[in-house]
């Protein structure tokens, strides 16, 4: 009895139809994309700087004008009219086309950059050549496929960020949060690394470093070539290397304790930034079923174990055996990792065992045993660490997780699987932050007593696939490791039931005074069961 009609035309009826402004905006934006596509098919534009400017400005202007057409005439408030009628946002025909195009783009980007015009010998051609003028302006070097990607990525976060702010202009939390991701992307991910490249010389050679991109999301941060460059760049380089270690072991736990993982996932991170802006139209597509949640827990923690094993193997390959040369030898490192993981496990087990589900306990024990026995086997047999060559592990991780999962599936499938598939199912950084958020953080989403009417807007618009309603209708606070704190559940709630906040650890999950409006005697009986 579905009343949703799939319609691929840009017309149709309100609220799914496009108005005049939106049609013009679509045309302007598509024009910019066509220029890039033509360059991709080796049309040689005479004045590359000018045509690049025209293309990028058209895309940006198109998106922003589209937002104006969509929201400027309307009053402040929730703007989800027709979301499930529009083909693009309800897995219709347009969504599949967009998904296929995006996925193809990622495959070419990761595996066939020569089709974009990257030439091993000689200068760039194609669309990469079109970006040369901008790259030279910023870093002084010719563009690469990653520069093209980074530029488009930044434009997407900026322009769709403006759209998001327009859409949620009544909501100050959303406005400030979106400005934050726009600034972090533009400054830290895009401009600063390019400027840093300008400082490089023969004696000073910093690797490309997006400072907010923290290991293990940035899984290659401690690879030999990067560590060598850091160390060779004097105190600045060593400082950056130390910053990389401190980021994950000191800064991250403190901020996550105080604010939950949202400080990173929906305020700073680039993957999150794209999901919150360009991906906003697809947030409702995430799978809310119990099954999806089960898969999520196993997959994301497996990726985390994979990245820990891989990084340990990679680092141990370039460490020496002689402690007189440098204190950090292979043995010190490997045993250190083993001790650290064991202590971490023991700590969680001792303090938080009651809060772990059965499968979480099995998983934690299983994975600890595997990692420790791999290290033990290495010492017992003297064979290659972790059964595989470190290089094999690194390449496999880079291919399967770094490229396929985070790029091709994570972003390419936005219009089909929703905007946060990577963040929810794959990101090892999110796994670490989530574990802490669930067990040791002041953050929670508070449920406002008995006001929930079980309408389902919160669950529908949760990009992480959390069934928010399941908690809200019981009067229970929401403390889930996957919650990135985007705040949309609270925004779309028609009854003012949800509030993201940081508060005391005590009574954080099950508020003691379960309050659904009944008299206290009954509540005692109900909460007993």
């Amino acid at each position, binding site marked *: 009895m579905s009343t949703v009609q799939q319609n691929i035309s840009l017309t149709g*009826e309100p609220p799914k139809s496009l108005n005049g402004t939106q049609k013009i905006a679509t045309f302007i934006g598509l024009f910019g994309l066509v220029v890039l596509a033509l360059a991709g098919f080796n049309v040689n534009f005479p004045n590359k700087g000018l045509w690049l400017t025209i293309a990028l400005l058209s895309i940006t202007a198109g998106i922003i004008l589209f937002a104006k057409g969509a929201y400027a005439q309307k009053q402040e408030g*929730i703007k989800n009219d027709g979301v499930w009628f529009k083909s693009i946002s309800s897995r219709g025909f347009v969504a599949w086309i967009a998904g296929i195009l995006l996925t193809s783009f990622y495959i070419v980007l990761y595996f066939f950059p020569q089709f974009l015009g990257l030439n091993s010998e000689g200068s760039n051609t194609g669309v990469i050549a079109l970006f040369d003028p901008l790259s030279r302006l910023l870093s002084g070097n010719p563009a690469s496929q990653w520069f093209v990607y980074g530029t488009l990525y930044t434009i997407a976060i900026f322009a769709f960020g403006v759209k998001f702010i327009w859409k949620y202009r009544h909501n100050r939390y959303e406005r400030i949060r979106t400005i934050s991701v726009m600034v972090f992307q533009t400054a830290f991910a895009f401009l600063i690394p390019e400027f840093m490249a300008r400082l490089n010389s023969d004696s000073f050679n910093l690797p490309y470093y997006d400072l907010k991109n923290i290991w293990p999301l940035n899984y290659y941060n401690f690879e030999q070539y990067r560590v060598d460059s850091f160390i060779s760049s004097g105190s600045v380089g060593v400082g950056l290397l130390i910053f990389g270690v401190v980021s994950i072991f000191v800064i991250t736990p403190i901020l996550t304790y105080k604010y939950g993982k949202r400080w990173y996932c929906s305020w700073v991170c680039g993957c999150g930034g794209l999901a919150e802006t360009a991906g906003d139209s697809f947030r409702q597509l995430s799978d809310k079923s119990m099954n999806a949640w089960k898969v999520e827990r196993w997959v994301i923690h497996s990726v985390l174990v994979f990245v820990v094993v891989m990084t340990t193997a990679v680092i141990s390959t370039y460490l020496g055996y002689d402690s007189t040369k440098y204190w950090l030898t292979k043995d010190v490192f490997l045993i250190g990792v083993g001790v650290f993981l064991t202590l971490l496990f023991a700590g969680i087990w001792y303090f938080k065992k009651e809060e772990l589900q059965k499968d979480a306990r099995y998983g934690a024990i299983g994975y600890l045993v595997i990692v420790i026995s791999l290290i033990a086997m290495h010492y017992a047999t003297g064979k290659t660490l972790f059964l595989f060559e470190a290089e094999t592990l690194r390449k496999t991780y880079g291919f399967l997780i770094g490229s396929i999962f985070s790029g091709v599936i994570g972003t390419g499938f936005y219009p089909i699987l929703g905007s946060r598939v990577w963040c929810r199912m794959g990101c090892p950084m999110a796994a670490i932050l989530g574990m802490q958020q669930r067990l040791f953080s002041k953050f929670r989403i508070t449920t406002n*007593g008995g006001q929930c009417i079980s309408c389902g807007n919160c669950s529908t618009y949760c990009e992480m696939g959390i069934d928010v309603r399941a908690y809200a209708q019981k009067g229970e606070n929401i403390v889930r490791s996957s919650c990135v704190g985007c705040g949309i559940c609270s925004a779309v709630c028609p009854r003012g039931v949800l509030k993201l906040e940081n508060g005391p650890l005590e009574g954080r999950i099950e508020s003691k005074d379960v309050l659904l409006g*009944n008299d206290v*005697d009954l509540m005692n009986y109900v909460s007993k069961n």
Partner: protein
Amino acid sequence: MEHIVIIGNGISGVTAARHIRKLSDKKITIISAETDHFFSRTALMYIYMGHMKYEHTKPYEDYFWKKNRIELRRGFVEKVHTDKKEVQFSDNTTLAYDKLIIAAGSKSNKFGWPGQDLNGVQGLYSKQDLDALEQNAPNNKICKRAVIVGGGLIGIEFAEMLSTRNIPVTFLVRENSFWNGVLPKGESELLNRHIKSHHIDLRLSTNLKEILSDDNEKVRAVVIEETGEELPCDVVGLTAGVTPNIDFLKDSGIELGRGVKVNRFLETNVDSVYAIGDCAEQHEPIGNRRPIEAVWYTGRMMGETLAQTICGNKLEYKPGHWFNSAKFFDIEYQTYGWVFSERSKKDTEAHFHWKHPDDKKCITIAYHKDSKLFLGINTFGIRMRHEVFDRWLSEKRGLDYVIEHLPEANFDPEFYRSFEKDILKAFHSETEVTAH
């Protein structure tokens, strides 16, 4: 094993079933003529507006019922034979029960207007009503104008729904200001302006006289009582309240008033037959409450209470402090305790009213004129904490205390601008004036 049969799969019946399952191993069957599975009635509007699909309005995944051994039966109960302890379906099959819970909900009021049964005239309560609306008003070509009759919560939601498809709406309200039988003047007038700002043709102090038909028994126009004006339209929404859905209980021996008469234990006059939710009518109103409360929350509370009784822990229905909420287009509304409108309040109830210059936020605090006891609060465009007001009401706080401690009750998202200082200032300047 005792067989509990529940008529109605709305919030009341489903809550009762869930709690009975938590407390016992009894056999449970839920009957519904409306849908296969429980869905949130309050979310129907969002399906029409495209915010959600029907699937999203189901609070439990479909496997939930089997897993919890709650049997679901799709069918329309035509009669209840209390002597034989069985219900009879419209296809003449029967189902025996040991205990029967009637949670059949409401139906839209019709006040005998001429033409009220024409095609295109409908209420907005059930899933079937939603499906009918999708037929009657899929777009603004088939439905060039809609007229809504009755200025309450469903009426304004109906208007919002139609306006998302750019269908012009005329909204006929009997009162001289929207919902002013419930809301104090300042709030009601704020909503009048907000409704109009959404391009709704709001007609106050206006009654429906009759609905006119075309040649095919379909609505063509409505006639307005006061002016005799004939308004062409393709859909008429009847939203003048709801009434208990109990026609099938005539001749069952169960005592009926407007609803199914129940005592404080939610028991009817017939042994082993109970009624909860919209269709239950208390013999005596509880406190300031109405004898029939067609509200989501009270349905849920009755379900929880009755489950205790049925599972051997006989419990009175004792709702706590009154609360409710709604959303009027873009303006959220919450209420805690009792704030009565000018039309219905007692002489001893006084109000402090504050309104933000943007005309989208306001609060009204009700207090006892002499003792200054805090009675309740209405809040528009500012979210407040249920828990805090519930506590203040129990602690019998005074007006001054509540005004001074308002920041504790704020539930707006982080970084929102707060208005407690403005409210406090307004309060002080007002009390100074009255002191002189």
